[in-house]
């Protein structure tokens, strides 16, 4: 339906344009600018074309970090999504327990990222940490500063603790939106608990699960603060994720050109994978329609 045009409306969104320009477009252009130039200091810039991109793409360190990053995101999604759905299903639906459960669940989400890292760094320590010390008492040698596997377990566990509640809250809201008639119909049809989940709850959760997967993928793929605080990327390079590598290049080594090229590639990877997820899930929806 074509409405009557009113050009005044454009003036009203002008401030948003300015804000977006300063917060997103201009910094991004600066990065693009760095990625195609080299400098030997003194304000002298040389145009190098795609040279940085070529060297970054050929860089072993990037390949390794990308592999680790994908593994991490995969693990995190594989644990958090089913776990989140499971917890959401077991939460009470009414009574005074509801707000209590929701508040307790939401607490990890309120903790600042670097504090999360610090908490887990202390928690998992063998000498004074509750977790590390208890495990040591049980005869399990747990040392995340030495053992790459232990470092991974710690980092994944930390992320699960930190972010599963988000999945739970999303799923819980999705479950609450299912009209009671559906449950009643399932009871009348003699459906088992599993059948009710499989044929009513899961289909109705598809929307929120899409959002949960996208959010959790993007966040976990760009994770920086928590592993940086806990392991600093170690032991060795074992938990050296993409953003940690990038920070290393840009801040510590001040290799601005390669870091900028890296940033852009990183950004495009995230964009690409999100787009793939999104189209895959909406395709399923479209296929249903036929």
């Amino acid at each position, binding site marked *: 339906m074509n409405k009557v045009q009113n050009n005044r409306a454009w003036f009203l969104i002008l401030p948003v344009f300015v804000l977006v320009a300063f917060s997103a477009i201009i910094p991004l252009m600066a990065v693009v600018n760095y990625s195609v130039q080299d400098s030997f200091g003194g304000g002298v810039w040389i145009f190098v074309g795609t040279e940085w991109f070529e060297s970054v793409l050929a860089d072993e360190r990037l390949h390794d970090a990308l592999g680790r990053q994908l593994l991490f995101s995969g693990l995190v999604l594989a644990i958090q999504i089913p776990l989140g759905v499971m917890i959401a299903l077991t939460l009470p639906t009414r009574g005074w327990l509801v707000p209590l459960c929701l508040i307790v669940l939401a607490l990890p989400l309120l903790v600042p990222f670097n504090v999360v890292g610090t908490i887990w760094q202390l928690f998992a320590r063998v000498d004074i940490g509750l977790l590390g010390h208890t495990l040591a008492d049980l005869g399990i040698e747990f040392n995340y500063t030495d053992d790459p596997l232990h470092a991974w377990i710690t980092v994944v566990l930390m992320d699960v603790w930190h972010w599963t509640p988000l999945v739970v809250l999303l799923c819980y809201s999705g479950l609450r939106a299912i009209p009671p*008639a559906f449950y*009643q*119909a399932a009871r*009348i049809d003699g459906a*088992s608990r599993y059948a009710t989940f499989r*044929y009513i709850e899961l289909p109705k959760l598809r929307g929120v699960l899409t959002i949960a997967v996208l959010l959790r993928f993007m966040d976990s793929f760009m994770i920086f603060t928590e592993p940086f605080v806990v392991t600093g990327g170690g032991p060795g390079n074992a938990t050296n994720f993409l953003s940690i590598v990038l920070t290393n290049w840009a801040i510590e080594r001040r290799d601005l050109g390669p870091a900028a090229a890296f940033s852009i590639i990183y950004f495009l990877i995230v964009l690409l994978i999100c787009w793939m997820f999104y189209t895959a899930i909406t395709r399923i929806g479209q296929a249903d329609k*036929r």
Partner: protein
Amino acid sequence: MARIVLDGVAHSYAGKGKAKADDYALRRLDHVWEDGGAYALLGPSGCGKTTLLNVISGLITPSEGRVLFDERDVTRLATEQRNIAQVFQFPVIYDTMTVRQNLGFPLVNRGLPADRIAARVGEVAEMLDLSDALDRRARNLSADAKQKISLGRGLVRDDVAAILFDEPLTVIDPHVKWQLRRKLKEIHERFHRTLVYVTHDQNEALTFADKVVVMLDGQVLQVGTPEELFETPSHTFVGYFIGSPGLNLIDCTLDGGDAVFRGGRIALDDDRLARVRGRNVALKLGIRPRYVEVLDRAGAETLPAQINDVEDLGTHRLVDLALGDGGPVIRAMVAEDAALPADAAFLRFPPERTRLFADDVLVA
């Protein structure tokens, strides 16, 4: 299939003991739903009809009384233990399943052999005109087809005691409503299942049911066939609620053997007189607009009236009259080509069509 008995059932959401008389969503009720009957529960919103349906389905355990299915006390049994089926206001279907899987679902859950299931599903789909859609995904069908699937899931089971309907045509396009109504009728005539149909729509209730249960404020006012509700409403509300326009109601008092009201008087028969004489009750006369006779000259038993307004509805005309000199307003339905006086008219209320109500209850 079953005969369903409500024995002294009452329900209050406040819980037993704590409830005052006004708290009852459903006041004490004894009723028998005969096996194979088609019943409608009719009333305005908040009248308790949904509560009553939920008592039958087992979603609500009544705070008083018993529910019997064929002599078996099911009062405390949960929905799934009662062998009922229900069609809800909004179509409930299993989104990811095909129509075939949807229809077979209750049987799969009950562990029937695959060939039995296939046979039953085929039969039910045939009857509901869903055969062509069996392998389509249920979620992509129109609302009326989805409602048919909901109904079909009840029909595939042969152990169903009753099928309950909770305003099932709410989301159906007006022009397909009648097809679905027809389907319901046909299914009822073929299978003689006990059907209980909740609605606030008079036309739907009267069209669907053999017997209509009219409710108001948690109370059953009348149970009767559509004709009975129309011809002899047992309560003034039923008279108003059934029929369009509703029953004409005239406040009156007794004077000797006559009912007297502003603008006239009419004689009452001895039988009815005997029932109201000496009782301190508010009396009302009631007559259907289509039974009011509009005449152009005075005669025996006529009352003078003024025509206020005439609405031509094509098939007939609705005449708005005031009795006597600014007395109560009477509406009369007159045939499309009947002669009408210009403004002064004379009304006759045929005694056999005139009802008397004492405190809103019919004096039989």
